[in-house]
C-alpha cells in the first residue's frame, strides 16, 4: 500500500530521523519536535509520524491525535498557491462557507488538502482582519475582496493564463538557446 518515496521525500525522512535522534524520548519533547518538522518541511507526513512513533514509544495514531488538536500542523504538503478562506464572523455572515464550498468543488479537494498536481491547497482561517471586504479570500499574499462564485472562476483563469505564459516564455527561451 505504501508508495515508494520520491527522492526528495527520502531526503526529508532522513533529515527528520536526524532531528528525532537528537531529542530525548520523553513525552514533553513531542510537540517541540512536531513544530520543528512542521517549520522545516511545512507538513507532517505519515512516514514522519511513524518515525516519531518509534522514537517516543507511542502509537502513530496517538501522535496524530495530539497533532490534529492544533491548527498549526498540516498533514499534506501545501500547494504552490495556498488558498486561505476566511470564516471569521463577518465573512461567515456574508456567506464565507459558500465560497469555501465553491473552492472545494472547483479544485475537487477538501479543506486542508492539496490538489494532486500540488498547485493549490485550501485552508480555512479565522479572521484575516479585513472584515469590511467580507467575504474575503487570501491566495498566497494577495487578498481578494467581496468574493462571489463567479469571481472564483476569474481567479483561476488568471492563474491558468499565468501558467500558460510561463510555459510559452520558457519555450521561447529554449528555442533561442538552441537555434535550429
Amino acid at each position, binding site marked *: *500500500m505504501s508508495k515508494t518515496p520520491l527522492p526528495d521525500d527520502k531526503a526529508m525522512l532522513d533529515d527528520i530521523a536526524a532531528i528525532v535522534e537528537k531529542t530525548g524520548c520523553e513525552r514533553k519533547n513531542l510537540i517541540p519536535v512536531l513544530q520543528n518538522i512542521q517549520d522545516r518541511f511545512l507538513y507532517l507526513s*505519515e512516514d514522519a*509520524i*511513524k518515525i516519531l*512513533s518509534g522514537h517516543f514509544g*507511542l*502509537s*502513530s*495514531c*496517538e501522535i*496524530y*491525535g495530539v497533532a*490534529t*488538536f492544533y491548527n498549526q500542523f498540516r498533514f499534506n504538503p501545501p500547494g504552490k498557491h495556498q488558498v486561505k478562506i476566511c470564516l471569521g464572523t463577518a465573512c461567515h455572515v456574508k456567506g464565507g462557507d459558500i465560497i469555501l464550498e465553491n473552492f472545494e468543488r472547483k479544485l475537487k479537494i477538501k479543506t486542508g488538502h492539496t490538489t494532486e498536481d500540488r498547485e493549490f491547497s485550501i485552508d480555512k482561517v479565522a479572521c484575516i482582519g479585513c472584515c469590511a471586504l467580507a467575504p474575503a479570500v487570501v491566495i498566497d499574499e494577495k487578498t481578494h475582496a467581496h468574493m462571489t462564485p463567479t469571481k472564483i472562476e476569474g481567479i483561476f483563469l488568471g492563474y491558468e493564463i499565468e501558467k500558460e505564459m510561463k510555459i510559452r516564455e520558457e519555450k521561447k527561451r529554449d528555442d533561442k538557446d538552441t537555434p535550429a
Partner: protein
Amino acid sequence: MMIIISVDDKEIQAEEGTSLLKVCLDNGIYIPNLCYMEGMETPPSSCRLCFVDIDGEKNPVPSCSVKVREGMKVFTNTPRVRGLQWSAFELIMSNHRIDCGSCLSRKACPLIKISRHLKIRLKPFRVGHINSGNEDIVEDHPCLIYDITKCVRCGKCLHICEKIHGRLYLTFAGRGVDMGISFFGDSDDETIPCARCLACVKICPVSALLSYERYEHSPEGSSS
C-alpha cells in the same frame, strides 16, 4: 471499611473510597452517565451527565469522580442538577444522528434510557442538530467502521483499547465538532490485533463503531 451514606434520603452501605456513581448504580439508583467505566482510576468526567448535589458542596459535582465518605448526603434530582443534565444531554444529542429504526443498539441504547430518566426528548429542541460536515462513515480501517454522526465521544473505546493492548490503536483526532475517532497509521492487517479483539465494538454504547460483519447485518449496511 464499610460506611453509610444517604442518597435521596435513602441509606446505603458502601465501601469507603469507591466512586459515588458506582455505589449508586450498584444500589439501584440510576444516575445518567456515558463515559464512566468500572475500574477507571481517573474517570474522564467528560459526558457531564452524572452530576449530583452533595450536602456541603457549593455546586453540583460529577459523581464519577467523587469518592464516598462517611455521612455523605447526596441528592440526585435537584433542579440545578437536572438543569445541567438537560443541557449536557441536549448538546450530546445535537451531534447524534437519531435513527433508532436501523440502529443496532436499540434497547441497549443508553441515550434512550437517559432521555426517559431525565424526561426529555431525544431530539434536542433548544440547540437543534449540528452537522460537523465531516464524512459520515469512515472506512479506512481493515475491520472497523466508524460512524461519526452517531458517536457520542464517550471515549470508552479508547479506554478499553489501552487497557487490553497497553497502547492505542484508535484515538480522538481533531477538535470541537470535528473531533472523532481516527485509526491513523494502523491500517495494516498483519500488525494490528483488531480483527481478533473488537472490544471497542462491543463497548460502544451507540453502535458508532462496528465490525464489517455487524455492519453488513444492520439494516443500514444491507440497504446500501
